[in-house]
């Protein structure tokens, strides 16, 4: 394992970067804010994966995961356990909140063969709660959407609305027929409808993918704008 040339190359790059940074600082070419510099270095390190996987990317990836985990942990303590459990029990005398700790602890009994039945009890209670909420959600969320899918085809509306409704109707019926798996699709009508449904699904996936690309490009622009304008001060901007 000859690692010396790689380390030497890395050091040369580091020295070159430091020299460019020092020059930029001296002539006010770059941002003088340490936070901006840190953000710029993090961005470039993460984007280095675009060339190939490397140690720098790995290092910053792990930093990010560590930061996110630590931040999440601190949020749980400061936003949940402290105000919603510790303060009521210790400072407000609401002793019955101790049972919440008991219920929470029951989840961890999954690691013991002897006590794992307690975990099932806790999981069962929460599954019941979520199932109950889902029923409410089905009625209040999906029922209006199902009602809205009944669109008029011959109503006295503008022709383009009727045309849109017709497209909607054909798409709905053909895509639903594609998902009929209870019987074999042998009849030419069902077969043709399912095939059209599959094509229309492809169109929908294309639209979704197009939106995804649009979103990702927006995020790239945000980062490039930061690097070019806030960090490098291209053309003296900001």
């Amino acid at each position, binding site marked *: *394992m000859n690692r010396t040339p790689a380390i030497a190359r890395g050091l040369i790059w580091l020295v070159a970067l430091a020299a460019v940074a020092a020059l930029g600082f001296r002539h006010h070419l770059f941002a003088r804010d340490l936070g901006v510099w840190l953000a710029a270095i993090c961005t470039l390190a993460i984007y280095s994966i*675009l*060339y*190939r*996987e*490397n*140690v720098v990317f*790995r290092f910053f990836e792990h930093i990010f995961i560590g930061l996110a985990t630590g*931040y*999440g942990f601190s*949020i749980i303590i400061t*936003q*949940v356990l402290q105000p*919603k459990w510790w303060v009521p029990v210790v400072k407000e005398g609401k002793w019955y909140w101790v049972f919440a700790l008991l219920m929470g602890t029951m989840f961890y009994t999954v690691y013991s063969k002897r006590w794992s039945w307690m975990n099932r009890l806790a999981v069962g209670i929460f599954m019941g709660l979520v199932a109950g*909420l889902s029923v*409410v*959600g089905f*009625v*209040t*969320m999906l029922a*209006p*959407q199902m*009602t*809205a899918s009944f669109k008029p085809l011959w109503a006295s509306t503008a022709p383009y609305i009727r045309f849109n409704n017709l497209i909607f109707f054909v798409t709905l019926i053909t895509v639903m027929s594609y998902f009929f798996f209870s019987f074999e699709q042998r009849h030419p009508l069902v077969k043709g409808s399912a095939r059209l449904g599959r094509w229309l699904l492809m169109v*929908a996936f294309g*639209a*979704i993918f197009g*939106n*995804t*690309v*649009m*979103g*990702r*490009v*927006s*995020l*790239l*622009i*945000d*980062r*490039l*704008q930061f690097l*070019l*304008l806030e960090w490098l001060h*291209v*053309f003296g901007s900001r």
Partner: protein
Amino acid sequence: MERDWQFWSRRIIWLLLATATALFIVVRVKAVMYVSKPARSLYQAMEKVPPDKIIVLSCNWEAGTRGENGPQTEALVRHCFKRGKRFAIFGWNFPPGPLLAEQIARRVAPEYGRCYGRDWVNWGFKTGQANMIRAWAKNIPGVIKEDMFHTPLARIPAMRGVKTIHDVGLIVDIAPADTLSTYVRFIYGIYRTPLGHACTGVMAPESFPYLDAGQIVGLLKGLAGAAEYEKLVGYEGDALKRMPAQSSAHMLMIALIILGNVLYFRARRRGPSTHSAGSGQAGSGPSRAASRDGETPRRRLSA
């Protein structure tokens, strides 16, 4: 030779993409924007909120989607400031959301002569998801208790008269994930409080059924939605400035897709002997390329 081309072709595409976007970030070109109906509907719904009711900006986003949700939040905040609508910043999905929105509000507020406490309040991040939202609808001060700076809500002028969901004129969920369904289920479905949605481009197709069913009053789709809203509010912010770069990236990608397909079909017509030469654009290329620039160094690193 072929492997070298496979290795470099993707990197050339990324470099072209970066150049196409960077060029229009540096060179300012005025964007021509068409305002879509969903964006206009959201704008009109904001306008209709009476002065005795508060607008809730549910900032369920984080730094990862700042490029899209940031300009959306700024456009909505500017609209509230411009029209003197009091609003509350709130978040319950990603902890940094309310903090990032607060930074935007504090940066913009001096331009309109607005101040914290009187014109807006930040409820901060709250845990509990759907259960919290259900309780919040019935008793806002009871669930929120204090703002993100630990000031009791009773001492904040912007909170006067705000007790239940009936005192909320509009909720706009600014989010990169499916948080809207919680509001639809437990707020619109029960109390009929108007809802708006400002989502990332990825989420936009999933939001259309809500719009079609009338469960949301309007929709901002990604950066383009933010640009449309900026045009409605009447200022040129980040979204409008970024639209030429966005369009140039889209045009480049369309051109590359067409070029890739032309090369693919030309290679296929030539026959199997030359097929591999053109497969750098499609087919077996990516897997080989991945083994060269993805797996090998990973193995080397782990060694």
